[in-house]
């Protein structure tokens, strides 16, 4: 069975690597992005990974700052999850740049007016902090690690807030231009990040039903965050609909009733909200929590896709969609094979990095000592 997984991983890695090589050596000929829908799968995947990273980190830093001992055993796995997902997010967004060789210009031409600048600066500090923390935590320098958690806690909160603001400040897109976006992104990051840690914790035997009430607490935290997210997302969608102004509801209608309605209703609402709610409320044991966490963590990509793409799929001027018709001047978008390949590569990379880390670092030490 283990061998089969390894083979499957290798196949994914190779298929994905072909896509990455195409992107690096041929350019963006094979992407389906255009001048209007200019951000797509890669940007969505990037904010998904950033959410996982910051959500995981906020969770473990809260546990550290407020000395919640019952979560101590999840600290290492949480930190590693943050590091791996952050590295993969950086890789995804770098490949999306038109001139990836110029990414460092962000540091030499600082622009405080740009939310994107702030994000890059925050990521850089965050990445260094995580690397430093991994070193200290795996070297058993507990005191230094906990000091760094105090610095990292507000920083990790700032990351999803800044991510939400990156979209929220764009006044040209009514769907994004909402003051709730920074808050929404924070809650979404927490939900997806904690769900992933819970899943990994269960997978590695760190979370058990009997063990110190960790199972119960995590169930309740996820349930609470899921409820909060449903309310926040509901507000984002329902408030413009109630307003009845076409300019504000076009993108919302696209999410709910557009070509990709199933991404919202089946993947997100059905598999990402209703089913986990059922599993958590019915208290289906450790397996129920594992399934609920897995469903939330993995289907969360649908939320990211539904944030990025619909807002760009609405013409800013009526009639522009027919004004000059070319492949890259259309207001619809379906990711190309190359885009999926690159995404697959990044997923395989994340799994590979995580696996490698487990092999190298004493990640499961807590379990062994017990």
């Amino acid at each position, binding site marked *: 069975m283990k061998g089969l997984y390894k083979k499957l991983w290798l196949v994914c890695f190779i298929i994905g690597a072909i896509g990455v090589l195409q992107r690096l050596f041929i350019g963006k000929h094979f992407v389906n992005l255009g*001048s209007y829908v200019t951000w797509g799968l890669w940007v969505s995947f990037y904010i998904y990974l950033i959410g996982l990273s910051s959500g995981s980190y906020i969770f473990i830093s809260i546990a550290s700052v407020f000395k919640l001992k019952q979560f101590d055993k999840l600290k290492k796995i949480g930190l590693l999850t943050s590091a791996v997902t952050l590295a993969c997010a950086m890789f995804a967004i770098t490949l999306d740049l038109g001139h990836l060789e110029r990414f460092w210009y962000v540091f030499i031409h600082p622009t405080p007016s740009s939310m994107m*600048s702030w994000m890059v600066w925050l990521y850089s500090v965050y990445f260094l902090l995580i690397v430093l923390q991994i070193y200290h935590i795996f070297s058993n320098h507990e005191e230094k690690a906990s000091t760094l958690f105090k610095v990292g806690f507000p920083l990790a909160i700032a990351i999803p807030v800044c991510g939400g603001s990156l979209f929220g400040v764009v006044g040209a897109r009514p769907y994004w231009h909402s003051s709730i976006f920074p808050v929404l992104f924070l809650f979404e990051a927490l939900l997806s990040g904690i769900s992933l840690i819970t899943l990994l914790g269960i997978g590695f035997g760190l979370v058990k039903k009997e063990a110190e009430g960790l199972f119960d607490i995590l169930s309740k935290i996820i349930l609470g965050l899921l409820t909060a997210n449903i309310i926040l997302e509901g507000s984002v969608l329902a408030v413009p609909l109630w307003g009845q102004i076409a300019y504000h509801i076009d993108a919302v209608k696209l999410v709910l009733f557009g070509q990709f309605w199933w991404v919202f209703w089946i993947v997100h609402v059905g598999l990402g909200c209703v089913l986990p709610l059922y599993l958590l409320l019915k208290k289906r044991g450790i397996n129920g929590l594992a399934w609920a966490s897995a469903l939330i963590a993995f289907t969360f990509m649908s939320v990211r896709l539904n944030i990025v793409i619909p807002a760009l799929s609405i013409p800013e001027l009526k009639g522009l969609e027919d004004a*000059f018709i070319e492949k890259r001047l259309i207001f619809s978008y379906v990711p190309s094979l190359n885009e999926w390949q690159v995404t697959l590569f990044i997923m395989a990379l994340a799994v590979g990095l995580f696996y490698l880390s487990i092999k190298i670092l004493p990640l499961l030490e807590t379990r062994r000592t017990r």
Partner: protein
Amino acid sequence: MQDKKSISRKDFLKIGVSCAAATLASGILDVKKAVAKEEPVSKDTGVDLSNLPAEIAQNNQLIRMQNELARALKKPLKERKWSMVLDLRKCIGCSACTIGCKSENVLPPGVVYRPVVDEEFGIYPKVSRRFTPRPCMQCEKPPCTPVCPVKATYKRADGVVVVDYDRCIGCRYCITACPYNARTADFGEEYTQGTPKVQDYELRPTFEYRKKWPRKRGKSPIGNARKCHFCIHRIEIGLLPACVTTCIGGATYFGDANDKNSLVADLIARPNITSLKGELGTRPKVYYIWG
């Protein structure tokens, strides 16, 4: 008293003829003045217009705009305010401006600076169409510039919003921030790609921003955000933007709005002038005459 009243017929005729002559003379002067305003300005533009019929040379708006352009270029950059007025009553929807722009700036597939929006109104048999060319609005308060993480796009002193191709990292955040969809991305493609030979005319360099940009893979402007820049590479050598000179309906006016005597200043001051999405407060420098 008697002297004042007694005006002989001879005196009356003298006064009358003098007045008529004066009136005529002043009229002629006015006409001369008017003609002087419209006169082809070969000395300013360096273009020899002597072979043109007088009516064309005197009343041609292109020549007037070119004249005004030359006048504006004598002022410091920050005192110019390049503006465009589009008279939609005259636009026939031929898209010559779009193609003229494509050709001038060697724009690849997916990049268009000035599409023409074609709208249909009414129900048969009462129908009409409106054509709205949409260049970059060159906003006074552009929402696209502050979002750039590397300051690659900015508003020049003369109000033209430009992109520094050598600095742009291709994140396309500016594209999402434009409320007019006026920015596009260069994905490095050619129209004749996939044919036996990519044609040379597609690989010729563009001269945007007064610099030579050979079309080579991985080199700017490939990978950059691109936008209309009012053809500043032409303006600065005394030529009108390509879309103005190719507009066969004479619907596109261009000039320095800070020049009170310019054609665009005249048009902007009219009550039937409007701008796109004025409610956003972006204060476009592209104006429209709708009716």
